[in-house]
């Protein structure tokens, strides 16, 4: 009788332990997915701001049509990439796609901001100044949200790869999540530093 009770207790303990691990993995996965929605919100806001800025700047930047078109083009492809990424945050392909599209957008945007710096009339325009401030803030928010997302993903991956968590993980198909890296384009590095004072 006693051995039976001991066996039942041990089995129950093990079951509770594994359920605990499973729940923890679920929690962490939801945490990083939620962290991605934070990025997504800011990305959407940036996509809304860019056309307004381009429209406002158009009148002044007749000679910079190329830059403006490049910005709009990069923005449109980034919108597509972010839609795909929002479908499956953490999947390696989607994250790479998004970070490349975002890198391209940041590159041309910083070029546009540098151009704006060169036109005092444009910089003095209240609407443009407001939009630039919003855009700068949104860029910062994106990068901070990305840090938070990467922290959440790292926390999840660490738990997922530990033993015996990895057993549970492979049993219930918890996939490795991919980090969202900042792709530093060459244009981004060479662009002059823009500061809004």
């Amino acid at each position: 009788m006693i051995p039976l009770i001991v066996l039942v207790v041990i089995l129950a303990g093990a079951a509770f332990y594994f359920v605990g691990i499973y729940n923890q993995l679920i929690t962490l996965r939801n945490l990083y997915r939620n962290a991605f929605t934070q990025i997504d919100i800011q990305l959407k806001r940036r996509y809304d701001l860019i056309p307004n800025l381009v429209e406002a700047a158009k009148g002044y930047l007749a000679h910079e049509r190329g830059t403006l078109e490049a910005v709009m083009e990069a923005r449109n492809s980034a919108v597509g990439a972010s839609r795909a990424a929002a479908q499956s945050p953490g999947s390696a392909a989607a994250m790479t796609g998004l970070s490349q599209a975002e890198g391209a957008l940041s590159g041309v945007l910083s070029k546009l901001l540098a151009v704006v710096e060169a036109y005092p009339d444009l910089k003095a325009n209240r609407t443009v100044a407001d939009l630039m401030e919003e855009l700068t803030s949104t860029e910062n928010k994106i990068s901070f949200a990305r840090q938070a997302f990467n922290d959440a993903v790292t926390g999840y991956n660490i738990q997922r790869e530990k033993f015996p968590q990895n057993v549970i993980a492979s049993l219930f198909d918890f996939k490795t999540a991919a980090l969202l890296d900042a792709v530093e384009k060459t244009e981004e590095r060479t662009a002059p530093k823009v500061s809004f004072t």
Partner: protein
Amino acid sequence: MNTDRATNFFARQARARRNCRRQLTGFVFAVAVIVLVTTLAIRLAWYLYVGTNAYTSFNADEAYRYQQKISTFTFFDPAFFIFMSMIIVIVILSASIYKMHTLKKGGAAVAKMLGARRIDPGATDPDERRLVNVVEEMAIASGIPVPQIFVLDSEKNINAFAAGLEISDAAVTVTRGALNKLNRDELQGVVAHEFSHILNGDMRLNVQLIGILFGILFLGIAGQKFLSGGRVSMRAGLPAMAAGIFLVIIGHTGSIVGRLMQCAISRQQEFLADASAVQFTRNPAGLAGALKKIGGSAFGSRIGSPEARQASHLFFSESHPASWFSFLNTHPPLITRIRLLDPSFDGRFPKMADEPSVPKPMYTEPFGGTGHYRLPAVSGESSPAADVTSMVGSPLSGHLEESQGILTALPQDVREIAATARGAASIVFALLIGKDARLREQQTAALGRTTILRGEVETVWSLSERLAGLSDRLKLPLLELAMPSLSVMNGMEKRNFLLMLHSLIHADGKINLLELSVHWILEKHLNPSEDLFRTIRKFSYSQVGLDIVVLISALACAGHPSDKEKTQKAFDAGLARIPELAARKPVLSFEENASYAAVNRALQSLTDASFKIKEAVVDACAHCAFEDRAVTFEEGELLRVVALALQCPLPPFIQPPLPDAA
């Protein structure tokens, strides 16, 4: 950076708890010191009093009694000691508990206690907008909810603090000087520093320390009030004087002990908060820049309000520097802090201009001017209208002076009413009350329905009677005065207010110029963010041609109400600025009555036109108005409403010295 830098959230919270115990020990120590000093002082005074009486009394019996007392005198009388300590402990504890209770309401209560003004998350002022954005960024970076934001408007030096008991009720406060003097990166560094106080749990500790300090300093403050209150005349005698002096002694002991406690805890926190700020922003240059600017300006980070002394350990940098004893400073020296962030710092601060900064008005596009505007002398061929479009969005210093001149002409009590949201709403409503009896009846019915006034409709009537005599020139500045108070309203109240405004304006089915201006100014002021994200639907002149013609016609007629020929000339001058439209040869159309309603509709329709069209419209309107180089009041007002509605603000027109009227 700092060696004992705690790496994660839990380690920091644990450290905060350790500090909390240290603080409690400090408090007990402080009370003990105060009890000791006070009892000794009282005993000493008693000894002196008895001693002098024993040898100077002329009554032999009395002298004998005193001598008896002095022979049994000890400095440590246990009964007396326990009695005194109980009284002092009870007073200190109840003062502390009272203060902590008032601070329970959270960070906002502390900020308000120090005279700070809350900033709406939808602020439109560029500096405040930037602050709101920076705080939101840091909330993301540190992963906590966005705290409430406050500004100390009267403080011209660079400083900031965070206060609150829980993360959810935290408040971040920044001085006006920090807003004006720091650039974006530096402001971010300062705000990040404050965020790390929130996250590290220092903030809770610091707010508790305010309560403890209040208790410790309470007796001293009471003593000072007692002595300086004039209630102690010589007649009240020695005992009352002595009591006052004792209280002051206690006060000084308390303030030194309190100050020591402030610095013991605060200095460690500051290093840690600097380190965490860099961790959040990944940009040591911003924070270092802010510290350098503090070092470079003559008054550094000094806070003018003496109220703030009890909170000096909350601040970003030294708010009340101790003049002689640097070991009594609540913050580590600036140079040390900067060197940790920027090891190459040579100790030379950049020179900062400390000119008394002109207080910025809330709304930088004031209306103004009298019957006729005259443009500044125009040289050569350049058209005056070109000046106007180049003035778009850049108010000159002259404009500020002009609007301030107008504001000082307003009656004082009206200005006081405008300081509250409800009062400001009543003023706006009172401006819109019509003269016609039937119209008034309809407006009264509408006013009764609103919840904003909470039944105080009479205020609106008495105000409207007073304002009836006011010249039109003063009505719009009055509106501006009311605007900061109006923006305090929350989203729901704003909606109600705008609905009310709408029903007052449309009560008679007609719109006059004043109503048109009020409508657009308030609409734009209270719903600022709408425009930024408005989708542009109209790209070609064919979509808005009619609206533009209406606007230019209205302006041409406003300039020359009776002269048909001149009206046509002004109309043509305006239209010539938009060749695409002029090619279609539109005709001047203007009916006196329906006019402003039509203008309103035209503006409404133009709001979602592209920026290029809007700019062209403002340009055309300006040329129309300046065709004859003199601008009537109506013309100027209308031009400004157009500019405001289309979000290309114009500055008011500066009046030239005194050329003869055109």
